[in-house]
């Protein structure tokens, strides 16, 4: 069992757990993920690492309430435990001194860009971070990410904070600037965001790494559920990734595979709510 030592709600639907997981903490690197499971009937889901402390033996993950599993996770409190927590999985994000790097993150993935920005900064890069949210109320970790960024740009879809618009707009401005010396872009967030970040950087031929988040089961290379086509080749995001060249990813295929269980996800959540007496169809 993996005890939750600390829980924070970063926004009403985005939560942070700091867990006791010394094995994972001892080996964790930026860009890696864990597979977690909550209880005997739970599914295995991947969560990218938001932070870790090897000395303390703790690992921090951040998740957003989307389906049954994450909604149920959000009901856990400090002192509760997760039944399973396996990792660190996947290959670490490759860190080097590239010069100037732009980190782009959207939504709850802002938590997972933090360790990447930190590692890049510590490796001597000039780090520009763009983080996008739907609205001001959903913003979190401005300070935490800002600490490792030479420049921090925040966008909101509704203009309630920072620049109004999508993350691709300030990114395009940076790339189009006459003094552009950006050597790579690293993006993590919703698939559609990573797709459009890649489309934005493509004409500038700026190397762009994306951290893919396909559906996974085992997360160790056994099932192939997370396979993605990259440069015409089938790769497993869990063991060959999760980072890939965004210009070479077959985005439409990835998005279709991510939608494989939409109907089941709705059903699962609805049934869970009904069991707790909070469902829509209750009493009908």
């Amino acid at each position, binding site marked *: 069992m993996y005890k939750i030592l600390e829980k924070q709600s970063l926004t009403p639907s985005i939560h942070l757990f700091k867990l006791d997981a010394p094995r994972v903490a001892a080996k964790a690197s930026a860009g890696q993920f864990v597979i977690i499971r909550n209880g005997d*009937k739970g599914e295995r889901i991947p969560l990218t690492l938001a932070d870790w402390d090897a000395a303390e033996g703790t690992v921090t993950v951040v998740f957003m309430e989307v389906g049954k599993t994450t909604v149920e996770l959000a009901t856990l409190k400090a002192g509760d435990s997760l039944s399973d*927590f*396996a990792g660190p999985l996947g290959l670490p994000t490759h860190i080097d001194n590239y010069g100037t790097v732009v980190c782009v993150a959207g939504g709850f993935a802002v938590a997972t860009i933090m360790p990447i920005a930190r590692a890049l900064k510590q490796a001597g890069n000039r780090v520009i971070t763009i983080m996008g949210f739907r609205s001001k109320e959903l913003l979190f970790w401005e300070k935490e990410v800002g600490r490792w960024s030479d420049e921090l740009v925040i966008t909101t879809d509704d203009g309630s904070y920072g620049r109004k618009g999508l993350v691709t707009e300030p990114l395009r401005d940076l790339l189009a600037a006459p003094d552009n010396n950006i050597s790579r872009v690293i993006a993590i967030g919703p698939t559609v965001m990573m797709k459009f970040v890649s489309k934005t950087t493509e004409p500038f031929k700026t190397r762009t790494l994306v951290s893919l988040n396909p559906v996974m089961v085992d997360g160790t*290379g056994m*099932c192939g559920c997370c396979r993605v086509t990259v440069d015409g080749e089938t790769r497993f995001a869990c063991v060959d990734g999760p980072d890939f060249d965004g210009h070479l990813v077959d985005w439409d295929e990835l998005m279709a595979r991510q939608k494989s269980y939409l109907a089941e996800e709705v059903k*699962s959540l609805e049934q869970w709510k009904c069991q707790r007496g909070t469902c829509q169809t209750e009493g009908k």
Partner: protein
Amino acid sequence: MAKLNLNRIEMPRQDPLERGRNFEEVALGYTPEMAAEEASRCLNCPKRFCVSGCPVNVDIPEFIVALKENDLPKAAEILKRKNALPGICGRVCPQESQCESQCIMNRQGAPVAIGRLERYVADWERENPSGKPAEIVPSTGKKVAVVGTGPAGLTCAAELAMLGHKVDMFEALHVAGGVLMYGIPEFRLPKEIVQGEVKYVESLGVTLELNAVVGKIDSVDELLAAGYDAVFLGTGAGLPMFLGVPGENLSGVYSANEFLTRVNLMKAYLFPEYDTPVQVGRKVAVIGGGNVAMDAARCALRLGAEVSVIYRRSREEMPARHEEVENAEEEGIKFRLLTNPTGFTGDEKLQLKSMQCVEMELGEPDASGRRRPIVKPGSDFSLDVDVAVIALGTTPNPLIAQTTVGLETNKRGTVVADEATGKTKKDRVWAGGDVVTGSATVISAMGAAKRAAADMDRFLRS
């Protein structure tokens, strides 16, 4: 003395139509009367041909004699002396090509149903535990890490523990058992039986650490540096192979590993009670002709689909056990033999809709000795399918090899190890089972693990 029955006693099975709609065990096991009658067919030959056919050399005539004498505790003890997992082996061993193929009764009729008797004794013992602890030799003070808890890892751990060594097992998944849990379906091998046998191994003093992906947490080298005197690799062959044809990554196309893991390990057949879903499909095609293909096909059928097995050679070349093919056929699974998929097509949402195939014919024998399938020109056709499961076999997961210094592997990614001893090219590291041979059987993995354990014991005591 009663006349010897030349026919074996059939084991009752669930009715095919009934069982095609549930995940309960198909074969129901012998009654005490059936077991007694089948046991009476064993001639207790002085030359123990059957034992030589068993990869772990179970003392077959001896346990059957105990059974004849109705001394079930003794029968169980004899079995467990050589085989820590009899409930599993009694169900999934290909006895027809091992112990039973050597039985003298083959000359006059049917061989003694050794596997069914083994299962009977194991099941009896599970329901009537003696509580008597297994005999364990005094502690040697040596420590061994066993990586992987499938048939090889469990066997090696049990053997070494009984020989007085301290054993820690590491399992990547959230439950021990490896392919016995994620691969073989409930209706062929109930998971309760697997867990019962895992508990037995733990009762020998073996510790089990779950969610521990060796190579991602400590590497093999780090385990050795941290105080383990030896390491056994029983990590299996978990990397699925694909066809390499267009459309293979459409939604609705599964590897057999994924399909079976969802259904067996994660219990998708109980969705939404269990969280993990699986696409049930209306028309399912399973591609391949091995036991895994049969397992996947029979799972898909039980989920409610119309299922066809697509195999590029003819029935004779099918690597699946005859019994499994028969079971599948009885349940209503169709076979499209001499057929090979050439591509998959999806709808606008990239969900699988159809599969393109060609017909094949058999040419001259190839390297495997089987007749090579050749495409029949102009035989292209299309099949309506919404789920496809690719069961073409597996190769070892490269993680351990990539993270272990000096561990030699061959071209197929399998670990190079001495066949007689399981010793790898790396100091203090042994390996056995599918990680060495590529996908094979549960019992051959157990045999390799036993040989490795014997060699490890020699090393640890020297």
